[in-house]
């Protein structure tokens, strides 16, 4: 496609509104981005045992995430090879077989076609069952409990894909004390459909610091986990950082020796935080005071590892519609009262009933609407704080000197353009990362 981005000198940077509304561009995105990129599909704690399965999505497709007989996570298209019916219609469970309700083809945990009625009577002897298993993704990777998949056999290994963002996920997806303990998804997924383009969600997750003002109502209503705080306990100093791979993140820096009186509304949670914080500082030293807060892994896997602690996948459903899947994370070893306090705080913050996210969705929906009509010929301005990045010894990536910056959005759309223009991963890989 022709470039949707216009860079006007050192201070101006524009994106065509058309990319948030065009049906043609959306179809290209499905092929060139969602069939090439690594996408978040689930968490190991959702499929702990052999035969456990969990329905997930990649792009518009329904996918089965399961653990096969060898204990390996598998990601397969949820569509019978015979006539396409879904072979799994339960959100989660445990099974030995995926059975098609239409004509009774059945598949093993590894996707192999294991049974079909009247095979001998109906099909020629040359019918090769091994060629008619469920369609498998090209690659699956696990990373600190999270599970990722890509359709593209030429996509680089997942850690190369993460690039400098690996550091944030390694620290952020682990337990509060930075040890070897497990983190688990609180059972259940919030799924809901919003009338907004998926990129607007990705831009938000990548660290849209300029939209902080839109959440004034929750700061005034004091929904945070501490007495007298706004929507969260106080941050340190915040820094945006981005990576050439298209990922945008937010970090905070604070003095590890200063007291951190977090979660004061819940004595059990405050005590657990203090105990794990002490261990975290012992393990990480100064790095504990340079902590990832949130980020977006290109294209649209968002995570928040502070308050709240959650992963959201923005699944595209058309230029004007996105399906959000949000899960919440807690330390497996945390006491039940702590898990429960955090669960209730997290869902009061995020998700469709989350007091903070409600306002986001209002803004995303009507911003998307305005990309149709006259909007198709207009551009958005992304020029906030251009050319103000530096390198930081403790925060990987291109760190912004200026908090009120759109540098992460610019990187998101730069990478988006590269994916849309590229013929294959050969044009997208970084030579020095191989």
């Amino acid at each position: 496609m022709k470039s949707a981005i216009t860079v006007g000198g050192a201070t101006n940077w524009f994106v065509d509104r058309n990319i948030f509304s065009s049906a043609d561009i959306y179809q290209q995105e499905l092929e060139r981005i969602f069939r090439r990129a690594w996408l978040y599909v689930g968490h190991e704690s959702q499929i702990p045992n052999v035969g456990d399965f969990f329905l997930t999505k990649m792009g518009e497709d329904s996918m089965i995430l399961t653990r096969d007989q060898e204990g390996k996570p598998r990601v397969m298209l949820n569509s019978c090879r015979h006539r396409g019916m879904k072979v799994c219609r339960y959100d989660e469970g445990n099974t030995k077989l995926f059975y098609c309700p239409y004509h009774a083809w059945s598949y093993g945990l590894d996707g192999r076609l294991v049974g079909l009625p009247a095979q001998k009577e109906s099909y020629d002897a040359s019918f090769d069952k091994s060629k008619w298993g469920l369609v498998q993704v090209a690659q699956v990777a696990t990373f600190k409990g999270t599970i990722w998949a890509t359709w593209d056999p030429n996509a680089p290994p997942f850690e190369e894909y993460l690039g400098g963002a690996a550091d944030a996920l390694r620290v952020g997806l682990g337990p509060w004390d930075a040890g070897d303990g497990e983190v688990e998804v609180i059972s259940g997924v919030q799924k809901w459909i919003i009338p907004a383009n998926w990129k607007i969600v990705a831009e938000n997750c990548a660290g849209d610091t300029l939209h902080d003002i839109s959440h004034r109502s929750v700061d005034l209503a004091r929904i945070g986990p501490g007495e007298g705080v706004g929507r969260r306990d106080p941050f340190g100093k915040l820094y945006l950082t981005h990576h050439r791979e298209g990922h945008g993140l937010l970090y905070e820096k604070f003095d590890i020796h200063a007291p951190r009186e977090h979660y004061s509304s819940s004595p059990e949670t405050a005590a657990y935080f203090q105990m794990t914080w002490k261990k975290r500082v012992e393990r990480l030293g100064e790095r504990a005071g340079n902590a990832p807060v949130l980020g977006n892994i290109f294209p649209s896997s968002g995570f928040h590892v502070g308050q709240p602690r959650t992963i959201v996948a923005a699944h595209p459903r058309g230029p004007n519609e996105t399906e959000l899947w949000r899960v919440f994370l807690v330390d497996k070893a945390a006491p039940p009262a702590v898990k429960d306090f955090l669960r209730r705080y997290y869902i009061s913050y995020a998700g469709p009933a989350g007091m903070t996210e409600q306002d986001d969705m209002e803004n995303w929906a009507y911003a998307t609407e305005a990309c149709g009509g006259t909007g198709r010929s207009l551009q958005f301005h992304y020029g906030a704080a251009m050319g103000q990045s530096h390198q930081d010894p403790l925060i990987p990536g291109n760190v912004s000197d200026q908090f009120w910056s759109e540098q992460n959005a610019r990187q998101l759309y730069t990478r988006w353009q590269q994916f849309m223009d590229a013929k294959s991963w050969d044009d997208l890989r970084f030579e020095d990362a191989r």
Partner: protein
Amino acid sequence: MSTPMTGPMNGQDKLAHLLLMREIEDFLYREADLLDEREFNAWLELFSDDIRYWMPIRKNLSFKNRERDISGDHETAWFDDNRKTLQSRVNQIMTGVHWAEEPLSRVSHLISNIRIEGEYRDVEGAEILVKSHFLVHRNRMETETAFLAGRRHDTLRRVGSSFKICKRKIIIDQTTLTVKNLSFFF
């Protein structure tokens, strides 16, 4: 009085039950009207200090697991509010900068199928389980429209000549929500 759930009620019990039913219906209709009239602080007064205002999520599960298709006490939910967070929601609307509800949505609560479940004693402080169904219509801005249906399991506590709602479990009939947000009440 207390209802004898085994065996027939006598005439006096039937009359008392009928009057209590009418009183509860009136209470729930008035509650719905406070919401639809946007009297949010007056609405909050109908809840006890120990309220659990809870809307679990729903799942598609196999028939043998159908009883788990409503998420459990300690699992992910849409709402799981206590008095403080419910108050925060009302306070947020009152800020005038809660953009999901600024300008306010137009909401109508149609409450039906009201009945008392199980045995009860209608004495001060006693709790009565009341089930009802809802159809909530929300329209906002120009054409944004949603209908959400489901059931409620309320625990009403007798306080003087009225009640306080001390537990509300809202069982919504959707797994993937078809509304962009839940910035209104049930």
